[in-house]
């Protein structure tokens, strides 16, 4: 029977071309985005979370390995590079605000960076996480290439850190808007900066969905926290362990 089932043949063919998983990633995102728009852009209906959920379900249902999936999805993943470079544009357009807010930003950067890494380590060890999990948690607010590098240098598990980075990003993108509303913080500069600092690129993506000023400050928060966390985590590890 095998080989004569046309549906099966078709699937085997589809599964070997990178086109299928590339397409599936786009469609999963489009579904997530459509639901997000339909839900009046409610933060809980997060497009990344929905798309990731759909893709994981599909991989699981078809028994496809992540490596195989990534052969197709890498073309989208690759665009993260030029997208990061493109963050210079909103930054440039808001240069006046950025200059004016230099002092508040620097203060928020130092406090935020220490709280992000320190509270993750302290909460993790209070809850009985193993030492290497605690170390893997430390850089989780930072964009993944930097976070994985930090994790490795302090004795964490870089791949676990990569997963924690994603979870933190999705969570941060979901809670930032209701949290800031509850705190009564209306300043898009502060809101965006916090989103980028605490939830890196996924938080920045959320900030751009809300307001261009928030997006610009989120991009800065993400970039600066990447720089500062390397030092902050090294100090925290020395102090806390």
């Amino acid at each position, binding site marked *: 029977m095998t080989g004569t089932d046309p549906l099966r043949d078709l699937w085997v063919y589809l599964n070997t071309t990178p086109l299928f998983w590339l397409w599936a990633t786009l469609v999963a995102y489009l579904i997530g985005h459509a639901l997000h728009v339909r839900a009046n852009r409610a933060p809980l209906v997060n497009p990344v979370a929905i798309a990731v959920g759909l893709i994981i379900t599909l991989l699981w249902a078809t028994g496809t390995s992540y490596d195989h999936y990534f052969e197709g999805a890498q073309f989208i993943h690759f665009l993260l590079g030029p997208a990061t470079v493109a963050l210079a544009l909103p930054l440039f357009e808001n240069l006046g605000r950025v200059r004016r807010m230099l002092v508040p*930003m620097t*203060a928020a950067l130092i406090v935020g960076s220490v709280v992000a890494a320190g*509270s993750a380590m302290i909460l993790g060890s209070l809850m009985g996480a193993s030492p290497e999990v605690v170390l893997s948690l430390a850089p989780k607010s930072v964009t993944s290439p930097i976070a994985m590098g930090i994790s490795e240098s302090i004795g964490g598990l870089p791949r676990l850190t990569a997963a*924690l980075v*994603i979870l933190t990003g999705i969570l941060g993108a979901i809670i930032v808007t209701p949290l800031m509303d509850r705190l009564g913080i209306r*300043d898009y500069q*502060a809101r965006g900066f916090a989103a980028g600092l605490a939830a890196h690129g996924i938080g920045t993506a959320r900030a751009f969905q809300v307001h261009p000023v928030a997006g610009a400050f989120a991009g800065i928060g993400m970039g600066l926290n*990447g720089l500062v966390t390397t030092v902050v985590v090294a100090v925290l590890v020395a102090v806390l362990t």
Partner: protein
Amino acid sequence: MPAAMAALFLCQLLGELAARMARLPVPGPVVGMVLLLLWLTWGRFTPKALPETSRGILSHLSLLFVPAGAGIILHVERLSAQWLAISVAVVGSTLLALVATAVTFRLVAKAMDLDQVAREGLGREETGRSGSAHP
């Protein structure tokens, strides 16, 4: 559009090279972002389509995180082994980091009396999006 993409890739390429040669603890694209910012500040030979192309990419930035996000399936075992500790740490620290950052930002801005300027600026660019706590 091709010129804008070429400019973005050029900055990334130079950023990667700089990061590698100077052994910077920052990824190449982040250095590329700084390079593009310097280029824009200099203001010459910037492709006309650059603002439009950049806005296009950034308006669907979320899409670009889907492939990496699906990578969570590789870590299900590790995550589930200590799920409670990990959940408390991730949720708690993300909440605390967001609050600490935004509150510090606002307190310092207020103390320095940058508040008035900031609010005027925001008023001008208000897009009237529903669902936020704007007056």
